[in-house]
């Protein structure tokens, strides 16, 4: 088990390295002089540009610049925002709680709707529940989440006046954004779980389990679910990153603060250090989430562990 976790960690190292290279190169891929890009909007004098070049070590070779960037990263220094005059790390820290709340809310909606619907549909494929659930799931995947957000605001905030559309104060204000964010994800989980359950129910060992007189309930939880849940767990990990990315549009629509709204604003302001910081942060969180999911998958399923030790 420990060997499996170590191997999985080792696999993540090159990806982590690649992420830093890509994020580092954002500044250098933008046409123009990096120092000038960093001082965008403040109409800098040539003297200021030269000073910044020196201060950030932008005048050295690209390799030494990357090395500096890595060293700064390891010290937890994500750079300095020129539009807000704060460190990027501090700004991410202040925006992060809002996005975490939203992502968790979306995850709760996704699992809370997706898992029961997927089970109900998968146990009796072709039945009325399945047809209904598949229809809803298809719509769930197809409706753009930012449009769903608008529909929810229209229905519950503008017409019925049941829930607030804007604001971040109460738990109530989190309901609509969470549904908008989690709905499509719920649809994916439901379809995946349904397909896996259908496959598992066709296996011979299910026939044996049924023949020895197990109740349908135990059949489902002890035999079917344990085998069907594996790839669903992987998808939850894969999709967690999309919850973080989806938060971008949702936060803009609901006027919520958070990493996504922050990122969009800073892209408009061309504040490159902030953009680099957020992109790096989200990618690393996503990487860690997938790592955790793989480890969890390995814990659940010994076959996965074995396939990794080859």
């Amino acid at each position, binding site marked *: 088990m420990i060997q499996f976790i170590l191997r999985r960690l080792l696999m993540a190292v*090159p*990806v982590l390295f*690649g*992420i830093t*290279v*890509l994020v580092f190169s*954002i500044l250098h*891929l*933008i046409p123009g002089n990096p120092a000038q890009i960093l001082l965008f909007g403040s109409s800098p004098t040539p003297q200021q540009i030269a000073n910044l070049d020196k201060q950030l070590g932008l005048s050295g070779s690209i390799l030494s610049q990357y090395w500096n960037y890595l060293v700064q990263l390891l010290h937890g220094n994500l750079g300095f925002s020129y539009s807000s005059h704060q460190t990027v790390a501090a700004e991410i820290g202040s925006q992060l709680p809002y996005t975490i709340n939203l992502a968790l809310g979306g995850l709760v909606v996704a699992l809370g709707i997706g898992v029961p619907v997927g089970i109900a549909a998968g146990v009796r*494929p*072709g039945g009325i529940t*399945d047809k209904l659930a598949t229809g809803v799931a*298809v*719509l769930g*995947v*197809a*409706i*753009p989440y*930012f*449009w769903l957000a*608008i*529909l929810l*605001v*229209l229905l519950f905030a*503008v017409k019925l006046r049941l829930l607030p559309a804007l604001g971040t104060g109460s738990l109530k204000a989190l309901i609509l954004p969470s549904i908008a964010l989690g709905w*499509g994800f719920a649809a*994916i989980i439901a*379809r*995946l779980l349904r*397909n896996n359950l*259908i496959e598992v129910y066709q296996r011979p060992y299910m026939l044996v389990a049924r023949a020895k007189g197990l109740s349908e309930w135990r059949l489902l939880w002890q035999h079917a679910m344990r085998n069907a849940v594996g790839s669903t767990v992987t*998808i939850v990990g*894969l*999709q967690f*990153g*999309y919850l*973080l*990315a*989806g938060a*971008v*549009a949702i936060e*803009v*629509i609901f006027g919520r603060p958070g990493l996504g709204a922050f*990122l*969009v604003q800073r*892209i*408009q302001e*061309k504040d*490159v250090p902030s*953009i680099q910081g957020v*992109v790096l942060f*989200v*990618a690393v969180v*996503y*990487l860690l989430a997938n790592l955790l999911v793989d480890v969890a998958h390995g814990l659940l399923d010994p076959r996965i562990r074995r396939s990794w030790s080859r």
Partner: protein
Amino acid sequence: MTGPTAPGPAAAAGQPPAARAPRHTRRGVLAARFRLAARRDPLGFIAAVAAALLVLMALLAPLLPIADPAAIIGAAQQGPSAHHLFGTDQLGRDVLSRIVFGARHTLLTAVLATALAAVIGTPLGILAGYLARWPSGVVMRVMDVLLAFPGLLLALVVVTILGPGVSTVVLAVGISYTPIFARVVYGPTKSIRAQDYIAAARAVGCRPLRIVRRHVLPVLGSELIVVISSAIGWTTLLAATLDFLGFGIRPPSPDWGADLSAGVQYLGQAWWISAAPGIAITITILIANYLGDFLASMTDPDRLRQRRSKLKDTTQLIAGEG
């Protein structure tokens, strides 16, 4: 499901033999499979027809009897009526004609981006799957790095580098989907490579390029068609998201994502301004998904013999990864 399930002459029994194309030609086979798939999967058939109509609508938009999408033709924020089927927008422009003309831009973006992703991603995936030595490791690790950025985030990185604009959106969406094509092709290529007929081809002295072209690509073909078809739905969504966030086309031109975002402010008074483009995006994604399933049934005879309710669908293939 209705209709005969066995492939073969029974599939087209209802029609006089003279109306059919000869079986032995490639076109004849495709036509027969199309009829068979249409019977097995009526929903997919509807999607195929709808997709054709959608493309026709976009292509023929200037010839249709609708208002100029940029012209102010009446009072602002009129509700849907016989005169203006989808109402008028915040400036008094016809929403229906903005949807029809917006389809040109939105769909073209999605198709170009998908083509870009397929053209870059597929060869990379084949290369990695076929070579299976260190180049494979390098290519797939690079794809892993790109996949480490959730789709929208990677697209926003491209927007940061290139600055907002129409061509930026195409590139951003295309690059975001490139690793998905590489991933989808990589696995099957690897297993094809282990087949005996590849070893045989190599034994008779075929060059790698010829093996890939003659023996690998045709096997991947059906899978690729399916992925491309469903990918168009997801690239539509991602392109619309970027336009919605204001990183794409500039306001006066009609576009689904941009119009949707313009209507958000008027939600209380005139919901139809943003409802119409939202419905258009939803329908496009639905069509793309069902078309993907339909094409899968058409190209893979095994699928035709299965009951539809037991089938795995292609939606999750992309949705799960992008």
